[in-house]
């Protein structure tokens, strides 16, 4: 049986176990005078039987599915005749894929040597056996444990605390999964980054002002010696993010102030969703808006003023990115401003302050730390944003502060380094991981700082 079917079967068995456990607890309770004489509600007996039935079986299934491939491979390889044994790990995986291709029928038998054919047959048989074993094992574990759970439905058994304990671990496992994923990502990025720094010195990466990652693929190829200075990329990212924040922070903040302090309920109920709709537009749409509408407009406008502007400018990408971030800033600020207690407003208004004086002198200072936190989160969003800059910012790694020139960003370079066919041990590919790691560190730092600020702000009114 396929693992997926087996999974379904286990779930069905668990449901049956639930029903049986529930029914048994009720039938035990009735002669005693009702379910009130049970230690736990029938639901808990059923749930316990279901969990007993499902969880061990699922663990067995998971372990089997995870390890069967490796075990079968080792068995197949070791059964090959002495002279066929692979010399290296790379050869082994080539050989294995050949064997499995034959076994799957995607490689006609005529193209393979006799030992390979033999091995393919063995592989098939082993797979068949493994699947059978797995099915039998999982079903029997499930049935056995479920039966045990059913047997142990007794009026005196405290199923409730056991179910609660199991649920607690279940929830913990879900939380752990998210954390483990993050840790996994960090590890994989860190590993490749480490390999990158074995090829390229630290100093060149951190202090080099040249970025041209084209390196020779073979020793005899004529190509430029690659340069891996991240400075132009980070200045490009910073330039575009700064332009984006120049657009997003004033507009977002002022619209948040309007919405929270001035707009009446009717206006607010219309304007707020409309503003937040900006956040729902896919970034790729913003990207072509920037590339096809805004960038030509800016270069034409600059030309009419007699200024030289590139057709792909930092200004276009940054401006459009700023518009994308407006709802981010405005809704975070709106929340923070609304969190300032009404009594503050009353206190100020009762002293004869106008609405704008109240805003400027009481609400805004009180909300400032929270607003700062929101802005920092928006900055980390801007730094990590990819699609708009890929489409509108360009690829030339210019080290410039002129917003009318083409710049490139860290994210754009990661995309170009990793799209298309890549060999995995060249400095060019590994550079993408190094850049990714830097980006991750930068946004992580910003997020930590932002969260710290937001938390500090929260304590203020406690």
């Amino acid at each position, binding site marked *: 049986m396929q693992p997926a079917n087996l999974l379904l079967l286990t779930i069905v068995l668990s449901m049956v176990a639930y029903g049986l456990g529930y029914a048994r607890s009720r039938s035990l309770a009735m002669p005693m005078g009702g379910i009130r004489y049970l230690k736990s509600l029938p639901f808990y007996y059923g749930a316990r039987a279901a969990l007993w039935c499902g969880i061990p079986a699922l663990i067995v299934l998971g372990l089997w599915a995870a390890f069967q491939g490796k075990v079968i491979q080792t068995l197949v390889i070791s059964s090959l005749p002495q002279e066929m044994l692979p010399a290296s790990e790379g050869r082994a995986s080539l050989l294995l894929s050949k064997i499995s291709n034959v076994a799957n029928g995607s490689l006609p038998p005529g193209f393979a040597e006799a030992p390979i054919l033999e091995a393919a047959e063995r592989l098939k048989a082993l797979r068949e056996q493994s699947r059978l074993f797995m099915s039998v094992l999982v079903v029997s574990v499930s049935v056995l444990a479920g039966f045990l759970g059913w047997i142990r439905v007794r009026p005196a058994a405290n199923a409730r605390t056991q179910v609660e304990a199991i649920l607690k671990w279940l929830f913990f496992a879900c939380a752990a999964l998210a954390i483990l994923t993050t840790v996994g990502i960090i590890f994989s990025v860190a590993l490749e980054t480490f390999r990158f720094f074995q090829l390229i010195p630290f100093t060149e990466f951190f202090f080099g002002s040249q970025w041209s990652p084209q390196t020779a693929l073979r020793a005899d190829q004529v190509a430029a010696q690659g340069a891996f200075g991240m400075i132009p990329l980070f200045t490009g990212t910073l330039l575009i993010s700064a332009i984006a924040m120049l657009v997003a922070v004033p507009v977002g903040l002022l619209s948040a102030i309007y919405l929270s302090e001035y707009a009446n309920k009717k206006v607010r109920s219309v304007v707020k969703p409309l503003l937040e709709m900006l956040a729902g537009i896919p970034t790729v749409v913003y990207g072509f808006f920037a590339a096809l509408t805004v960038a030509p407009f800016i270069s034409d406008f600059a030309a009419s003023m007699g200024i030289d502007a590139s057709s792909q400018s930092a200004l276009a990408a940054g401006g459009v990115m700023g518009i994308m971030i407006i709802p981010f800033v405005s809704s975070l600020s709106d929340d923070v401003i609304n969190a300032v207690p009404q009594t503050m407003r009353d206190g100020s208004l009762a*002293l004869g302050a106008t609405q704008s004086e109240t805003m400027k002198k*009481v609400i805004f*200072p009180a909300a400032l730390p929270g607003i700062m936190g929101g802005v920092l989160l928006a900055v980390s969003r801007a730094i990590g944003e990819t699609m708009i800059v890929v489409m509108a910012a360009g690829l030339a790694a210019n080290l410039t502060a002129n917003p009318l020139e083409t710049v490139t960003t860290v994210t754009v370079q990661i995309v170009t380094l990793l799209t298309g066919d890549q060999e995995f041990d060249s400095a060019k590919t590994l550079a993408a991981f190094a850049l990714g790691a830097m980006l991750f560190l930068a946004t992580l730092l910003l997020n930590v700082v932002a969260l710290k600020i937001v938390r500090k702000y929260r304590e203020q009114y406690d």
Partner: protein
Amino acid sequence: MNTINPAVTSEADQYQAEPVAPVREQPEETIIEEGKTVGRPFADNAKFKLRDVNVSYGDTRAIKNISLDVAKNEVIAFIGPSGCGKSTFLRCLNRMNDSIEICKVTGSLQLDDQDIYDRRRDVVELRARVGMVFQKPNPFPKSIYDNVAYGPRIHGLANRKSDLDEIVENSLRKAGLWGEVKDRLDATATGMSGGQQQRLCIARAIAVSPEVILMDEPCSALDPIATARVEELMAEMSESYTIVIVTHSMQQAARVSNRTAYFHLGHLVEVNETNKVFTSPEHELTESYITGRFG
């Protein structure tokens, strides 16, 4: 009978999270005649002249046809069971209800013979003359000095730093807080005790030199000692200000006020000299309330 609609309580609850006492005995509404107030609601030297005031939140009437004078330099206490409209009525006097969209005020409300709700009325000027102290101490999260200086600064009351210093010192002295805080004027106000915070709020209100001070249950969040301190302060202040105080404590009304007004379900039932209200109330509802039969 029960005219206190959820709309009213929810709007009002933002400001007056009053402890709702169980109503033990619901008096008949027929006892109250709308617009009829027993006792002496009017005064010769009126600071506030309020006639036929109606306040409604949406479709719900919170204040029903109330007419009342507040005399110059008197302390008048508003008492009554929760949700009777006394806070709503108080907040009409400096138009703090303006920020509630659905709140509608009709009738004639005059401060020194000028209409409070006139379209051309400058609310800023009105509130500078009619200060307010709230139920919960609400100092701004600024320094003690900046809290008191807030009003004088926005009204341009001081031309020099030394003037401002003087206003701050005087206000804090009047609020009986100077001795406690004179060495730490730069400390944040939110770090003070509740009673100190409330006296700071009173100092803040005094700093604008208002003519009237409205107090919305100023002691309900304070312990008995801080309450006594604030009540003492009120007695001193009554020499120079007109004070309108909403209170839940009948003892407090008896201690601090000259006149007492009893509100019931949006009606103004009785207004009289405080000792008369508490010794020989004219209206049977007032009597039931002060003897603790309901509320």
